[in-house]
């Protein structure tokens, strides 16, 4: 049992290490800015998730008590990582893309980041 525990823990540790590496390596290797974003948001998150699971298992198998609070960090990361990525993507769109370089936005005409009010006073106007 203990060996199985060790095995599982080690597995999670190694896998998460690989994903953690991939996440940052992708950030370095991938050339275009949008692609770069992919690697860290997922791989790194997953990597951390793996470490956290390893930690839970470690306390379960090695210290004989159930400690789930690592799940909380996982929860945080799963909620926040997409939002962070979303913001950075918006920054990229804002800076480096034009309405023409993006696919057509359908009925809405334009993507939200490009939806800039020309008139300074527009905010005051009733919708």
């Amino acid at each position, binding site marked *: 049992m203990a060996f199985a525990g060790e095995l599982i823990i080690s597995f999670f540790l190694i896998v998460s290490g690989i994903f953690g*590496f991939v996440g940052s390596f992708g950030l370095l290797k991938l050339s275009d800015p949008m692609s770069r974003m992919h690697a860290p948001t997922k791989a790194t998150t997953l990597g951390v998730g793996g*470490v956290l699971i390893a930690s839970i298992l470690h306390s379960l198998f090695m210290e004989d008590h159930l400690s789930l609070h690592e799940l909380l*960090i996982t929860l945080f990361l799963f909620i926040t990582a997409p939002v*962070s990525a979303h913001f950075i993507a918006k920054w*990229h769109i804002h*800076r480096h893309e034009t309405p023409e370089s993006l696919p057509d936005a359908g009925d809405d005409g334009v993507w939200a980041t490009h939806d800039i009010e020309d008139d300074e006073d527009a905010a005051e106007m009733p919708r």
Partner: protein
Amino acid sequence: MITYAIYFAFACFGVALMMNLWRILTSDGVGVRVLALDTMVINTIALLILYGVSISSEIFFEAAMIIAMLGFVSTVAYARFMLRGNIIE
């Protein structure tokens, strides 16, 4: 066995950290740097937890949790600054 696995993971995340640093140091756009910093924060969380596992201590949990929360807030703040200038509007 776990010890070696931990070392391996340490190495992976340590190298990851260095790569993030390299990104921060060499990028030309602030956006990528913010992304790299965000990744760096997440990697440090992994390192902290790993370190906790390696010494069988849970003393770092709260710190890791707070870093996770605050890393998000600062990333959003940087991004909002780049997008809107004013981060609280």
